[in-house]
């Protein structure tokens, strides 16, 4: 357990946390403002990655692919909102679950039909594909630093948007009490649509940014979706600040747990059992964390819903 490894894994944890924040930010607003359970948020992330690969194939430029894929992800999200989700806001949670589950099935297998089941890859921009020396014997890929930086920039922009603009004020008010906001004459449906479209685009952005590191495959949205749920539940539904802190926490705990669980357990239980138990404990860690948080605070760390 050298310091270099610790620093590298901490950075990796930060990168995962930032990625989770990009996905969870939209999800927590959709949950908080519209009380809508959108299981299909993970496939939006996947779709962003696939669209970027497709547009890269056409244009040959990462930046062009990024912009076009973001626009396409936004358009697709708005189309979904218009065609399906809008009809379901007044229904109960079970209907949301079933409808969005149907959308997951459709999109997961739809991309498989179009692009095939084999993983695809998206080349990263040439200038950012190298590694940088952070300290002696500590080399880190530039692209991961780019992801961290872009996530932090988005977080800062979101903070300004939510805390200091009129639309952000409406979003916060909507998360606290949507009926009251509507009664005060705000077109809540339009607010919903903006929030939804924006959240979709953020998830797509996360998918595009991570695509050069991970392989782009049909199931990639599912794992991330569950992690994003854990994040927003720990952070408190509807709270951007909660989502940010919880995302970093989950990213760090998960990454560090996976890399060091065996090392930590070895002195306690001996090398052989540690090798068996370690990975199991590591993969359970964030769920245990969530259980503890919810046991102590059933509405998360920073609940937005006031009563």
């Amino acid at each position, binding site marked *: 357990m050298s310091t270099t490894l610790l620093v590298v894994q901490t950075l990796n944890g930060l990168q995962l946390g930032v990625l989770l924040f990009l996905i969870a930010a939209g999800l927590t607003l959709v949950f908080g403002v519209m009380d809508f359970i959108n299981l299909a948020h993970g496939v939006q992330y996947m779709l962003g990655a696939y669209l970027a690969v497709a547009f890269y194939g056409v244009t040959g430029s990462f930046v062009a692919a990024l912009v076009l894929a973001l626009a396409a992800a936004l358009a697709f999200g708005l189309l979904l909102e218009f065609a399906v989700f809008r009809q379901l806001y007044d229904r109960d949670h079970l209907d949301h679950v079933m409808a969005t589950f149907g959308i997951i099935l459709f999109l997961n297998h739809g991309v498989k039909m179009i692009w095939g089941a084999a993983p695809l890859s998206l080349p990263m921009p040439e200038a950012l594909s190298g590694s940088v020396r952070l300290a002696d014997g500590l080399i880190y890929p530039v692209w991961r630093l780019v992801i961290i930086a872009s996530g932090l920039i988005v977080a800062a922009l979101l903070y300004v948007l939510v805390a200091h603009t009129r639309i952000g004020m409406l979003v916060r008010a909507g998360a606290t009490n949507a009926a009251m906001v509507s009664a005060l004459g705000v077109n809540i449906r339009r607010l919903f649509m903006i929030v939804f479209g924006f959240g979709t685009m953020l998830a797509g952005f996360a998918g595009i940014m991570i695509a050069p590191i991970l392989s782009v495959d049909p199931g990639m949205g599912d794992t991330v979706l569950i992690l994003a749920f854990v994040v927003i539940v720990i952070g408190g539904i509807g709270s951007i600040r909660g989502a940010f802190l919880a995302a970093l926490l989950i990213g760090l705990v998960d990454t560090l747990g996976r890399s060091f669980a065996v090392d930590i357990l070895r002195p306690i239980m001996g090398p052989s059992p540690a090798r068996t138990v370690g990975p199991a404990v590591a993969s359970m860690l964030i769920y245990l964390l969530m259980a503890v948080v919810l*046991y102590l605070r059933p509405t998360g760390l920073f609940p937005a819903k006031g009563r």
Partner: protein
Amino acid sequence: MALAEAFPAPPRASLRAQILPIGIFLALAILPLVAPATGVGYLVSLGARIMIFAIAAVALDLLLGYGGLISFGHAAFIGLGAYAVGILAAHGFTDMLIALPAALAISALYAFLTGIVCLRTKGVYFIMITLAFGQMVYFTASSLAPYGGDDGLTIAARSTLLGFPLLKNDRALYYVVLLCLLGSYLFCRALVASRFGRVLRGAKENAVRMETVGFDVYRFQLTGYVIAGALAGLSGFMLANATEFVSPAYMSWQRSGELIVMVLLGGLGTLNGAIIGTAAYLLTEEWLSGYTESWKVIFGPVLVLVVLFARGGLIGLASALTRRLGRG
């Protein structure tokens, strides 16, 4: 008292209301007898598969339809029941007098321990935390290297009863599963009609009111959660025996989602609907996957359409149709 007035027991079994369940179980009972005539060889094993999942779906309907508790981790209990069989068999314990109680106990215990935490939360939080606990079991099973890890675990032989290979024959297995489904169904029906069931339904309508009347809603919900978990464990026990294989895939969150879809597809809060929905789901899967590998591209939009236009699922659709026909 007020409770009995607010939630009267269903009127004593008018014969018409019984036609559907009697029809379902009669059809299931004669299926193996007519199966050879159809020439479809796998009909008996497909029927057993449907009934195995129907046991879990009926239990889930108890939570979803009557308790208003949207559990998104139900597949975990199936998996726990199945792994109890697999792990015991790997150590040479193949008798169902050991494996069955173990399967029920482990799933009930897990339901109890997680229920303590989950039921403190409400609404979306409840959905998410049940999902997370489901994932926890999934990842634990995936990293159980001594028992196959990701690849799963093959079971050498089906459970025996005091050394007698009761489940060896597919048709015998079918009838044992049928008995289990019938038992679970009747048990859940009795439960729903009982005082316990009325408290559960009352808490779904208005938990605060039930608390005020003097019921400890938390305890009732926890009991319901444990019962549903144990029944799903029974389903897992049967699934492991039917497939002679257990794998983490049994408890992926998509499985839990499918179980919810099965209940909703048939009709929420009817128990009959859970069985019909399971059959509809698995038969559609069987039918469509015969045409194309990516049958879910068709099935996904169908689910969306069912949500949008067929509220109350297949049972709701059928009763709406009969009403319209009755009006002439």
